[in-house]
């Protein structure tokens, strides 16, 4: 039956694609745009990674060796902004661009020109942001959380940073609208919402989160802007404002934001684990409901980032309980993934290895999250390296590993070529060892009393910092292998089959390999859909 699809498309192979620069500048094709998003994310990942290595080099030993403390603060700030808004979010949008039309049986995204616009905003946004490194006063150094009054002490970087954040926000919102419209309107006849692959589901919910909270961030930074330039005092106590109000607004965006970074990862892992366990996803519907409940709860937990600002007791209790509650649907997901592997027939190709590491290490980050939810204990953990360890566990072996798993998994379908499994596995092992050597000791540092965002520390923290920095270079440099393995696959990889993974299911695998330029020009028939789903 897979042949039906191939056959339907046999006469469609006159892809009128423009060539050269124009193909990319005027791109409206979801695959071209997806590729640009992914390449962009990769570039930002390496830039942000270079900044992280500056940070870890300075922290290798006590004493200031390399950078001025002000520049150090710019590095932590820029690293976070680049990784969150430049690497992880665009990578997810890139994957959505590639996969959503193929998975729902559509020829392309619903709004191709908007798609072009939302991508091309990003290079401008990040050029502005990176330019701040060269303006008087240096790059923003108040932390990615931009808390006033500190963030208002920035020099000329300030308006550039705010404008860059606005552009990123617009880009994310437009990208999200495109995903929502594509999923809700372009599904092939016969593909009900509850027949969709989980990646589409988690992205649909992520898109709603984006549409809901990016304007909140825009509002927050606009208020900063008017406080800075136009004499308002939203956040200035001297003018009757309140700096804590910024934190409430910021985290009302910020907590859903962390789920924006991780929900699509849940989707990818929910595709990969069944494939390599050769068994359908356990509890599909409960996965959908769990994702939806996480998204809902993510709007009512924001103040767990601000337990130390001095909230009323009732407020602290409320946010403690709601935060603990979010662990329940998260747990449901982990249990479902375990149950999917149970009684499966498991093989360990690179995408699966990354998904397994995700499973273990994301769960570990969930544990530290649970500990952080205990308010009295958070009075100790807050703003220490324990928090740094927590969010890096959920974000690096969490979100970033899932992105890499997705790239390895779908690369054969995209390019028609297979990556080198040996190098893929090497990349996996070096990354996994590196990430743990890098972040695990940070739990110890935080508990022993090391605050985050400091360029230098007392000698009692020296040992684990050194270990962490060694892990950082191992992890960082291993990522060059990732680029190499992808590059060499695209250049000269072995030809991949239509269904390179024996247990793969879903509509994308019903397309020929490499996937045709306009994925599904005629919608897949119901029998193709059910074939895809059954597999």
């Amino acid at each position: 039956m897979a042949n039906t699809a191939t056959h339907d498309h046999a006469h469609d192979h006159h892809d009128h694609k423009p060539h050269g620069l124009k193909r990319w500048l005027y791109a409206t094709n979801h695959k071209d745009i997806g590729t640009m998003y992914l390449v962009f994310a990769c570039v930002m990942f390496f830039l942000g990674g270079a900044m992280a290595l500056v940070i870890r080099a300075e922290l290798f030993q006590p004493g200031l060796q390399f950078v001025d403390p002000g520049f150090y603060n710019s590095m932590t700030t820029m690293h976070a902004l680049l990784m969150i808004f430049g690497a992880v979010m665009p990578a997810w949008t890139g994957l959505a661009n590639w996969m959503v039309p193929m998975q729902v049986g559509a020829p392309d995204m619903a709004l191709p020109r908007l798609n072009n616009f939302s991508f091309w905003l990003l290079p401008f946004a990040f050029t502005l942001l990176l330019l701040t490194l060269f303006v008087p006063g240096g790059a923003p150094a108040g932390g990615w959380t931009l808390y006033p009054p500190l963030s208002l002490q920035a020099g000329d970087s300030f308006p550039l940073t705010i404008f860059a954040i606005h552009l990123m926000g617009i880009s994310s919102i437009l990208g999200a609208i495109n995903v929502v419209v594509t999923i809700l309107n372009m599904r092939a006849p016969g593909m009900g919402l509850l027949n969709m692959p989980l990646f589409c589901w988690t992205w649909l919910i992520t898109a709603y989160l984006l549409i809901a909270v990016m304007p909140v961030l825009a509002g927050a930074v606009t208020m900063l802007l008017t406080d800075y330039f136009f004499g308002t005092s939203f956040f200035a106590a001297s003018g009757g404002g309140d700096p804590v109000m910024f934190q409430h607004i910021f985290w009302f965006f910020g907590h859903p934001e962390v789920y924006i970074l991780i929900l699509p990862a849940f989707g990818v892992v929910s595709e990969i684990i069944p494939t390599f366990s050769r068994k359908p996803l356990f509890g599909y519907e409960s996965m959908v409901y769990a994702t939806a409940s996480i998204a809902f709860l993510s709007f009512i937990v924001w103040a767990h980032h601000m337990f130390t600002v001095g909230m009323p007791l009732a407020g602290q209790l409320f946010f403690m309980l709601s935060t603990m509650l979010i662990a329940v649907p998260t747990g449901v997901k982990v249990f479902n993934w375990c149950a999917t592997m149970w009684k499966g027939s498991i093989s360990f190709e690179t995408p699966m290895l990354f998904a397994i590491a995700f499973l273990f290490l994301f769960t570990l980050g969930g544990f530290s999250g649970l500990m952080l939810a205990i308010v009295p204990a958070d009075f100790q953990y807050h703003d220490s390296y324990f928090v740094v360890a927590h969010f890096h566990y959920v974000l690096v072996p969490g979100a970033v590993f899932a992105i890499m798993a997705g790239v390895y998994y779908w690369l054969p379908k995209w390019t028609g070529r297979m990556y080198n499994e040996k190098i893929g596995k090497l990349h996996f092992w070096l990354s996994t060892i590196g990430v743990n050597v890098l972040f695990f000791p940070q739990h110890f540092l935080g508990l022993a009393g090391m605050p985050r965002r400091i360029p230098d520390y007392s000698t009692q923290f020296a040992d684990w910092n050194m270990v962490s920095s060694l892990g950082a270079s191992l992890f960082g440099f291993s990522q060059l292998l990732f680029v190499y393995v992808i590059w060499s696959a695209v250049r000269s990889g072995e030809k991949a089959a239509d269904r390179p993974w024996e247990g793969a299911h879903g509509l994308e695998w019903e397309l020929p390999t490499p996937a045709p330029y306009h994925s599904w020009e005629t919608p897949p028939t119901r029998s193709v859909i059910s074939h895809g789903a059954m597999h």
Partner: protein
Amino acid sequence: MTRHARTALSATAFAILGSLAPLAAHAEWGNLNMPVGVTVLSKEIHALHMTMFWWCVAIGVFVFGWMIWSLVAFRKSQGAKPDTTMTHSTKAEIVWTVIPVVILVIMAIPAARTLIAIEDTRNTEISIKVTGYQWKWHYDYLGEDVKFFSSLARASDEARQLGSGVNPESVENYLRDVDNPLVVPEDTKVRVLLTAQDVIHAWWVPAFGMKKDAIPGNVNELWFKVEKGKTGLYRGQCAELCGRDHGFMPIVVKVVTKDEYRTWLAGQKAGESTPADASSEPAADSSPTIAALPAAPQG
């Protein structure tokens, strides 16, 4: 792997381990956990931390055990056949929703109890207003007319400059030493009122179990009561990013007996030059007389 490659690999491994050997000389490898601390609250907080930690370990043993079991027992390479009929189970879903909820409720109760104790600032015996500045602390003993700044000790300050050439290991209490420590009596409920002059800071002494933000225009409260017999120096740091020298505004609290405290306070009122010395050298910018100090801002 060829024998050559293997030898090369083990040689590299040994080289790396060898280069790490000097590290083993440090005594700090054991610094792995939250300090138990010296106040009633810090002990309760530590206990909560440990209980939650052991819950996580228990859940971890179960979940990771399940994962590892599946990964080992159902390997395709060992001929495992998938059971494709296993797609959902309402019973299982209910079990793994309800059990976590129960665990969370079990944890929430003692956490809430401790939280209520933390928020109970009644019956405090001494109140000290702490003001964060970029980048030092100001302490004001309310009602006593004793106030002073507390900044990074000079030895640390010199050593921490970029390219100072001073080995931090040679500086005692590198970055955790101040010119004028806060002095408080043991066995006394001390209330700290926190505010800031410029940007947000946070006052954190891990041994007291407590951290709270010092915010311009706000006054926050926290309290601690150091147990009797636990006199000594306790060190902490600013815990909220506050600009360039955020890493360089430590906190030192000197806990003394009630008698010593009375004597010290009387001495301060009489205008003794340095409050109480934690470091051998007073820093240059510590004002010699209290009268010369600027008044703390009105929050």
